[in-house]
């Protein structure tokens, strides 16, 4: 690990300012992903701005009937919140399907959104990776790509976003609130937070340098029945091969988003319109642009079958 200086931020705006002023600075909250990457020197911040002391760890009800989740609310606390369990069960389920109890106790809401891909070629510094070292190539394209993206990928990168929570946030139309180094605040839909890789897979979010997420806001509850079905290589503590987040209403309409298939949570409006007609038309619409590799083309039928299982459960 490279040496770094360290400071505790006094306020969100001061944290953003400190991060923008110091070249190579990074925020640290839970640290469960950043420290892992720092040990491998995939991340090598020169300065860490510790935001843990900022009072961003509460969940408050909004005037619109939703919830405002502080950026530092731990994954355990968000999943266990009674309002989330009752009204946003898909979010609790997604959180509880990810990582381990120890990691969820540390990992934060904002950090979960900003975690980096677990592509093995990103993690192996002896391999080319356009995300880790722009211009070096993509080891996964002609390599072992069983875990990788089947939609929205590019010739530069076929990595997936690893988060389960982000898929539920996308399904729920969450909004991300931020503060910038100049003290200005803004909010953006979580749909616009994550980018597709294109030619610049190293740029993963729409956040500006030093911009700090302060909260994630959920609109009023959707009702319906909530599902987060995650398919993985073992029963617990593994990343998704495919996951389906869904809210299904009594009349068969609803929302659906996928994890494990793209560089960001994958949700297509045209696919949701097909929900009353069953899993196949929904899966076809979600994966219309799919370009799987020889190793991960199994994900296409897996999406349809997982979706079918969810819709069968929804019908009861």
């Amino acid at each position, binding site marked *: 690990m*490279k*040496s770094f200086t*360290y400071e505790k931020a006094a306020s969100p705006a001061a944290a953003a300012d400190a991060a923008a002023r110091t070249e190579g600075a990074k925020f640290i909250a839970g640290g469960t992903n950043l420290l892992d990457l720092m040990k491998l020197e995939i991340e090598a911040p020169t300065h860490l701005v*510790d935001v843990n002391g900022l009072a961003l760890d509460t969940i408050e009800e909004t005037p619109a009937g939703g919830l405002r989740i502080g950026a530092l609310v731990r994954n355990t606390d968000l999943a266990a919140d009674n309002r989330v369990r009752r009204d946003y069960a898909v979010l609790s389920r997604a959180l509880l399907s990810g990582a381990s*109890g120890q*990691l969820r106790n540390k990992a934060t809401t904002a950090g979960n959104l900003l975690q980096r891909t677990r592509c093995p070629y990103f993690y192996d510094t002896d391999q080319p990776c356009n995300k880790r070292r722009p211009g070096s190539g993509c080891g996964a394209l002609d390599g072992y790509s069983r875990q990788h993206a089947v939609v929205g990928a590019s010739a530069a990168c076929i990595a997936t976003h690893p988060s389960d929570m982000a898929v539920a946030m996308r399904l729920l139309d969450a909004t991300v609130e931020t503060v910038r180094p100049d003290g200005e605040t803004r909010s953006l839909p979580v749909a616009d937070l994550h980018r597709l890789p294109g030619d610049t897979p190293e740029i993963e979010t729409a956040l500006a340098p030093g911009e700090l997420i302060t909260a994630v806001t959920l609109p009023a509850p959707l009702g319906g029945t909530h599902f987060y079905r995650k398919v993985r290589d073992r029963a617990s503590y593994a990343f998704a091969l495919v996951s389906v987040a869904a809210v299904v209403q009594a009349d068969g309409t609803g929302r659906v988003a996928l994890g494990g298939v793209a560089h960001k949570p994958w949700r297509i409006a045209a696919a949701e319109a097909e929900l009353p007609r069953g899993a196949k038309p929904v899966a076809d619409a979600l994966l219309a642009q799919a370009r799987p590799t020889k190793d991960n083309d199994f994900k296409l039928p897996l999406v349809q079958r997982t979706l079918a299982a969810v819709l069968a459960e929804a019908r009861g």
Partner: protein
Amino acid sequence: MQGPNDVTRRDVLAAGAATVAGTLAPTGAQAQSGQGAPPAAPSASGAGASPQPARAAVSLKVNGTVRDLDLDTRTTLLDALREHLHLTGTKKGCDHGQCGACTVIVEGRRINSCLSLAVMHDGDSVTTIEGLGTPEALHPMQAAFVAHDGYQCGYCTPGQICSAVAVLDEIKAGIPSHVSADLTAAPEPSADEVRERMSGNICRCGAYSNIVEAITEIAGRPA
């Protein structure tokens, strides 16, 4: 009892580690120089080339005792416990948050001490396996692991036990899990719940069934 000329297991392991490090050094150096060839990443500024690693004062309350340390900022909580406070009960397994051997309880919650910086825990209360029980007065969970033969080599055991103690507190606090059928109901300490909640603690000897028996036995006792 240890005499002046006795070699401890720890001495042998330390010597072994030094030998391995020496053997691997050239390979590591090659890998580093190979990586140094392309243009440096934008974040790798001159600021990182400071000759003196940054340090920070850290005060930890470990097993009830306040311990003041002056540490390289890079020091993980795990290394602070093992290398600086010589509390070697907490184990380093993967050092990447995948195995759970380093699990300790901080401010009442179990975490992977390898994936947290000591400097981020200034003022925090930390409970390690040494703080749960003693050889003369085992914690009930330690006694249950002994009674149920919940280990073979024992390396993962301190992490398993710290995790298990915290798991039962999490169930009592009503925190649901992936296998909780009803999200809004209070979770029960069933074998299925224990298995799911303990999935962040790997045991390569495969003592899992006995570990689950030990934990569910303690869970069944009145608090």
